[in-house]
């Protein structure tokens, strides 16, 4: 065993493993950036040849008392009390008056600017007027011949709050005695128009009788620095950080007023009660230590982010604290936990997370539900309404729901066309209404959960039940939600939150600014809805959909407005940011993640059903656009929408458009004689083609249905085509041949069912006077087209290309 040695500096025992035989504690301490001791030997002259990169700006070395004494003949400087970026403080004695004073010298570099002297005098004078028993008085100020700015101040024999907090012996009851005194001092200074700007435990001095004296009023402003960043002592753990600064001091340093001090006071208060700083997601004091739960609202209100939501005067803090102090037994347990075994804080905070996750899930799914509802509504009603085209309504609905029944509902309800209206269609629309009915409350419940409202818990529980039926993902989420919401800890949390709200209400906490998001959503939705209703009416239809969508929307709007008004009335929600519902960002992210995974899984599960629906919708859209497709050499098929039916003279583009023959004459610039010949060829080719198709077609007819199967006949079709071009070319000159190949819309004639390429199966059925038809194209291998395709549709009349089979076979029969 090595012999016991002691450090000559701190007197501590030197451990056997001391690095290089030096005291590790002192070595470590020497590493501190602004530790005064380490620099003591450095005279100002030394510093010039010290490597400058090691010198952080803003540091200065306080002179030795003896050295300083030369500049202050009237004082006997006794010792250096402390030092920081704001200067150094010495204990001194005024020789004439024989009283102890504190001499504060400012860092020499502050006197650099020309305007400083003037500013110093002005500020110091106003500080000297600050005469209050809780404020350290300024006796004198000025600057020495060496240009050192100084204050001579009241000497407080005692300690500062930092040391008291660090001793760990501060009882809540003592904190409640200290805070009102700070408030008195702040109130007084604020009335004088002076803001401290740097309230922190180091600046709150306590004399030996426990009386509070606040030091360094207005110094932060005078020195024009961010206040906290410079102070440091070896023992002060939490210093050197801007944690005591009000948010606006960091964000808008120009707009700081006395309410910044109230925020800093809140930080000090919180630290006194809990020993910790209120950083990030912090729990209200009563959850950390045994204090009156009503103190939570006081502390949280002083810590409100926006100055206007804080206490507006320090005196109000004082009143509230004293009220609580007066009528409460010391160290009262949080109300919700009285009479129950204490719940481990970790379990509670875990549950907090779960509740947040549930709330996020609820909001996300609710919002998605509302969006689907709105989109479906706009698509069903809007699409059809605007175009006035039943086909368009049909397309919109189909795109979104993929449900043919639901698509008709909109069309039928809006157009009031009995043929388009059917029972299942109305049910389909009602399903969307139900979506809205569930989704809106879901969002409301989610928001309520974030605010820890008890009714939201019940509402969310009720809404979770239908969720269970969505096997498997909805079931899993539903079980999780029910588990969270029925949990014992959850119950306690909600009870606690409501208790705090009641106290806040009783304390008459003033309202904050209204939350406007919800009302904006509500009003926007309502406006959209009203537009849709009026457009429907203008178009001469009765807005049936309003019956389905109106009530849930109305409920939502009323709720949103009531919510906004409720804030104003009770002010409870105004505290929502700082009050108990502390939203854990991580939990929110987890919630969003879970929601995303659930959505992806759902998408995967419904994909088999979704693909045909999307395909159907797409093929419909494709047919609506006039899309030109080359289906065989020299044959371009132009859409299906306006497909003409009949011999070339009768083939028209649209109801009023030119006939195919006319079009041919125009595009090829045919002479009348040529035109007659060309028309003849067209007519003959058309008949030949139909004959070709007929030879390859089989029809199966029942009373109300017809199945047509066209077998591929591509080879015959192509030789037919060759013949057709040969016929045409024999009467056309070179230029017109090119024009014909480029412009002749032969697809209109021959392309109806892909020019004999695929095997085509057409199923037509008629029910209650309404047709529906499904067409399947199956391409043979090697045709270069991909396997299978379907298209379907329906309506009160058949499109011409189907009508041909329907009527023909009817007569055949």
């Amino acid at each position, binding site marked *: 065993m090595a012999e016991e040695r002691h450090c000559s500096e701190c007197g501590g025992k030197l451990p056997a493993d001391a690095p290089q035989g030096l005291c590790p504690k002192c*070595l470590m301490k020497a590493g501190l950036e602004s530790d005064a001791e380490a620099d003591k030997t450095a005279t100002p002259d030394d510093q010039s040849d010290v490597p400058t990169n090691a010198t952080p700006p803003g540091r200065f070395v306080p002179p030795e008392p003896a050295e300083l004494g030369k500049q202050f003949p009237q004082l006997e400087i006794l010792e250096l009390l402390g030092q920081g970026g704001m200067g150094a403080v010495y204990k001194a004695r005024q020789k004439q008056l024989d009283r102890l004073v504190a001499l504060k010298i400012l860092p020499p570099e502050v006197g650099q600017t020309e305007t400083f002297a003037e500013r110093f005098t002005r500020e110091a004078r106003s500080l000297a007027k600050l005469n209050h028993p809780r404020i350290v008085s300024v006796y004198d100020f000025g600057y020495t011949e060496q240009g050192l700015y100084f204050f001579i101040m009241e000497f407080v024999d005692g300690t500062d709050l930092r040391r008291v907090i660090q001793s760990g012996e501060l009882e809540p009851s003592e904190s409640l005695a200290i805070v009102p005194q700070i408030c008195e001092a702040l109130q007084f200074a604020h009335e004088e128009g002076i803001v401290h700007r740097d309230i922190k435990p180091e600046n709150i001095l306590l004399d030996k009788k426990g009386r509070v004296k606040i030091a360094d009023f207005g110094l932060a402003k005078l020195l024009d620095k961010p206040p906290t960043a410079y102070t440091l002592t070896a023992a002060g753990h939490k210093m050197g950080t801007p944690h005591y600064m009000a948010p606006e001091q960091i964000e808008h340093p120009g707009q700081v007023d006395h309410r910044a001090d109230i925020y800093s006071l809140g930080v000090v208060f919180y630290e006194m009660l809990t020993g910790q700083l209120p950083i990030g997601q912090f729990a209200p004091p009563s959850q950390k230590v045994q204090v009156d739960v009503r103190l939570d609202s006081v502390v949280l209100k002083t810590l409100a982010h926006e100055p206007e939501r804080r206490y507006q005067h320090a005196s109000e803090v004082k009143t509230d604290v004293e009220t609580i102090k007066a009528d409460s037994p010391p160290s009262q347990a949080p109300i919700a936990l009285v009479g129950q075994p204490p719940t481990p804080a970790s379990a509670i905070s875990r549950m907090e997370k779960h509740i947040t996750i549930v709330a996020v899930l609820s909001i996300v799914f609710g919002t998605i539900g509302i969006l689907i509802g709105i989109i479906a509504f706009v698509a069903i009603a809007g699409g059809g309404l605007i175009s006035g085209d039943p086909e368009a309504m049909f397309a919109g609905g189909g795109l979104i729901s993929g449900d043919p029944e639901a698509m008709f509902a909109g069309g039928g309800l809006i157009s009031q066309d009995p043929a388009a209206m059917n029972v299942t269609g109305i049910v389909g629309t009602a399903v969307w209404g139900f979506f809205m009915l569930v989704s809106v409350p879901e969002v409301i419940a989610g928001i309520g959960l974030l605010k820890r409202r008890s009714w939201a818990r019940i509402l969310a529980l009720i809404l979770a039940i239908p969720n269970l039926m969505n096997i498997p993902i909805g079931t899993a989420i539903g079980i999780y939600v029910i588990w969270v919401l029925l949990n014992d800890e959850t119950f306690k949390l909600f009870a606690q939150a409501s208790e705090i709200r009641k106290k806040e209400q009783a304390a008459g906490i003033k309202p904050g600014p209204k939350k406007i998001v919800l009302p904006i959503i509500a009003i926007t939705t309502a406006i959209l809805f009203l537009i849709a209703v009026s457009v429907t009416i203008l178009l001469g239809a009765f807005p049936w959909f309003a019956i389905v969508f109106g009530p849930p929307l109305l409920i939502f709007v009323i709720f949103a407005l009531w919510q906004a008004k409720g804030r104003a009335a009770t002010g409870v929600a105004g505290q929502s940011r700082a009050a108990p519902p502390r939203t854990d960002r991580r939990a929110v992210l987890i919630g969003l993640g879970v929601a995303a995974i659930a959505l992806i899984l759902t998408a995967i599960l419904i994909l088999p059903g979704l693909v045909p629906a999307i395909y159907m919708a797409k093929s419909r859209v494709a047919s609506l656009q006039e899309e030109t497709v080359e289906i065989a050499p020299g044959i371009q098929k132009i859409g299906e929408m306006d497909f003409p039916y009949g011999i070339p003279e009768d083939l028209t583009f649209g109801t009023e458009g030119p006939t195919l023959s006319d079009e041919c004459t125009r595009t090829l610039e045919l002479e009348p004689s040529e035109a007659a010949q060309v028309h003849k060829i067209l007519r003959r080719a058309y008949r030949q083609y139909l004959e070709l198709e007929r030879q390859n077609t089989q029809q199966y007819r029942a009373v109300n249905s017809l199945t047509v199967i066209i077998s591929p006949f591509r080879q015959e079709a192509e030789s037919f085509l060759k013949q057709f071009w040969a016929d045409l070319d024999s009467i056309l000159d070179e230029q017109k041949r090119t024009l014909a190949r480029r412009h002749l819309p032969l697809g209109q004639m021959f392309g109806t069912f892909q020019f004999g390429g695929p095997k085509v199966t057409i199923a037509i059925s008629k029910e209650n006077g309404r047709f529906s038809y499904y067409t399947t194209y199956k391409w043979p291998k090697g045709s270069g087209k991909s396997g299978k395709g379907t298209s379907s549709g329906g309506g009160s009349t058949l499109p011409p290309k189907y009508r041909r089979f329907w009527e023909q076979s009817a007569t055949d029969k």
Partner: protein
Amino acid sequence: MSDNTPKSSTPSGAGRFATTHWSVVRAAGRPKSASYQQALETLCQTYWFPLYAYLRRQGYDSHQAEDYTQAFFAGLLAKGGLRLADPKRGKFRSFLLAALKHFLANERDRAQAQKRGGGRKVLSLDFENAEIQYALEPAHQLSPEKLFERSWALTVLERTMTRLQAESAGAKKRKAFDLLKVYLTGERSSVSYRDVAAELDMTEGAVKVAVHRLRRRYRELLRDEIAQTVTAEDEIDAEIRDLFAALAP
């Protein structure tokens, strides 16, 4: 007044900080990158002893502690090792201890340790010396965590002093360093400046300047050493205070 001249060259805070080992590890995200591996290895090579001491104090014998230390680093340096704990948070010291605790919880079984990392040398760690060093650790009732922190603090100081010493090359400088280093801890040295000045054949003023420079350099090195294990410049002071507290008996 010469000291009134603002020191124009601020320490190149952000620039320097971006390249410390721990920030490299944290920023890497992809454990594959070479710089990540190297940085993590350097850190582990430096700070393994506190882990060893922690394990010993937990009651493992020297062989077990040895095995666990190696197995732990094997896991840490292997792919995805950082998942043992969340490196996104805080400093390397907290991370390492959290990761070790996590590791221990998963690895109570000694056979498991053998299988995973026992006998396999990931880092060349001088366990023989470690045992001697551990024997030097004060035997009074330090908790394993406290011991971990304490030996961490000592490791930091040891490294710093070694680096500082290494900078004093040459017999004369070496002698000066040996004489002046006592002033690193403060003023109240039993040796007076005058004696040292006589010994070194310098003026007293020159000694003061030299002491001042030595301190400055020491502080730079210490802060650099600590910077390697924290995430932001402003955490250095806090870490120093933590380590200072850890050294308190």
